[in-house]
């Protein structure tokens, strides 16, 4: 339902009231922003010298290195977690009970442990000595692999039953049914959700901060701590710059997800494409059953949930 269903087309009185609200609302919004800016100014955070540090070649190089370090972890963890997810998903849907149980236990276990603790344990040495880089990559891979496996499973379950039956009927083997029929359709329909989860992976690379891996956040802290300007540490400035970098990266990925979702909705094929809702930092559908992902409806009925909101 679009936002306009919730209220009437405004009459003369309501229009006046809306104008008043608009003025007051904007005033409040601007007032809040102005207050923050005033406080920042009072503390001298707008001193050009404090912002000038980002013109130093060394600091620019630092930021670039950190960005590359973050992207490196993200790329590796992203690829590994997807590969791992495919294996876990196959195990989860296996016909052999023990394999299925192991997969279920593994997925449930690692989805309910905070990623930070997994990474910390890996770093301290639960699997021998890992460098911060590999601790981060392995931790992200395990955790996101589990989440992505559940996403894939939801996708496979949403493929109409007839597809699988038809594939078996023409004599394909189990592995062929999976690779040729089920996975392609599942991946296509779940792509928006998979990418949304990749956004989470990207955000979670910032946990490398805790185990001293020199990614963006870590270098932000270093820069803030090591370049005092006239005795003032430029925390506000670095947070602003690095926050903008993170938000930019995540928004690009989110837009890709939304774009694919829109593109998929246009195509008139059997199964629906899931909406690109961004899973919460770990969107755990605990145990089974309460999956949060909007599973595409196999019968092709409208899912009201996915209607775009005019206000957004």
């Amino acid at each position: 339902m679009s936002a306009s269903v919730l209220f009437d087309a405004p009459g003369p009185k309501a229009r006046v009231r809306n104008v008043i609200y608009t003025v007051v609302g904007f005033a409040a919004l601007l007032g809040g922003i102005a207050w923050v800016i005033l406080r920042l100014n009072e503390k001298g955070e707008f001193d050009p010298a404090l912002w000038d540090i980002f013109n130093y070649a060394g600091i620019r190089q630092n930021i670039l290195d950190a960005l590359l370090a973050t992207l490196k972890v993200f790329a590796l963890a992203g690829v590994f977690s997807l590969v791992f997810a495919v294996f876990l998903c196959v195990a989860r849907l296996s016909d052999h009970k023990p394999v299925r149980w192991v997969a279920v236990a593994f997925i449930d276990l690692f989805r309910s442990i905070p990623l930070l603790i997994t990474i910390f344990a890996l770093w301290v040495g639960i699997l021998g000595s890992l460098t911060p880089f590999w601790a981060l990559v392995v931790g992200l891979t395990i955790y996101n692999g589990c989440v992505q496996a559940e996403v894939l499973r939801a996708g496979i379950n949403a493929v109409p039953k007839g597809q699988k039956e038809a594939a078996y009927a023409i004599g394909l083997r189990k592995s062929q049914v999976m690779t040729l029929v089920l996975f392609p359709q599942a991946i296509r329909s779940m792509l928006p959700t998979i990418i949304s989860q990749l956004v989470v992976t990207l955000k979670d690379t910032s946990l490398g901060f805790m185990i001293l891996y020199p990614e963006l956040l870590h270098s932000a802290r270093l820069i803030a701590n090591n370049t005092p300007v006239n005795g003032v540490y430029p925390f506000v400035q670095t947070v602003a710059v690095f926050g903008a970098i993170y938000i930019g990266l995540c928004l690009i990925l989110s837009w890709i997800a939304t774009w694919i979702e829109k593109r998929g909705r246009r195509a008139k094929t059997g199964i629906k494409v899931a909406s690109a809702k961004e899973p919460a930092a770990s969107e755990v559908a605990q145990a089974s059953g309460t999956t949060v992902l909007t599973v595409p409806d196999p019968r092709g009925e409208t899912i009201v949930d996915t209607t775009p909101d005019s206000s957004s």
Partner: protein
Amino acid sequence: MNVLLDNLSLFREGFIGTLKLTGASALVAIVLGVIVAGFRVSPVPPLRIFGTLWVTLLRNTPLTLLFLVAFFVVPKVLFPDLDSFLLAVAACGFYTSAFVAEAVRSGINTVPLGQAEAARSIGMTFTQTMRLIVLPQATRTVVPPLSSIFIALTKNTAIAGAFNNVDLFNVSKTLSNDGYDITMIFIWITLAYLIVTYAINGLFRLLEHRLEVAR
């Protein structure tokens, strides 16, 4: 094997710390989330803009960055004397509120059109429509995603442990520095988190059954 027995009081403190952080942040997140979701569908444009900005900014920022802001920028610029618990609750609560707002908004979208239309046709205002008709019905669809959001919140509070709050992650760090075997610490901490997450899961299942009405 004796990590747990030797440090029972520390573990208890950490467990309670995690519970306290989760509970307080959940409260903040629910209140803010419902308000922001209301803003996003409201007839007043600046509120809609504010709601959209809030959700977009917070959903695309790593929680760790929010913690940096909360612990290094906020005390320096805005409020100098807040203790670390309040700051951690603010960071976790604000972050989660964006996800709650999205869940509530999609819940609002699943309420059949006729409901809001009927409410309007008997002359209800926007706030009345929301408060009396739409939100109560949206609750039913919002409960399952909320449960996973809160489980995610429970795990996110671990980050607060890295910023000098006493919680389970903090305990594991302390014990690991004391030279205990990380494997045993990991197992016990995991068990503690499993207890919390399964408790939340069970609680929400119960809630779901209570709210279940044949439609």
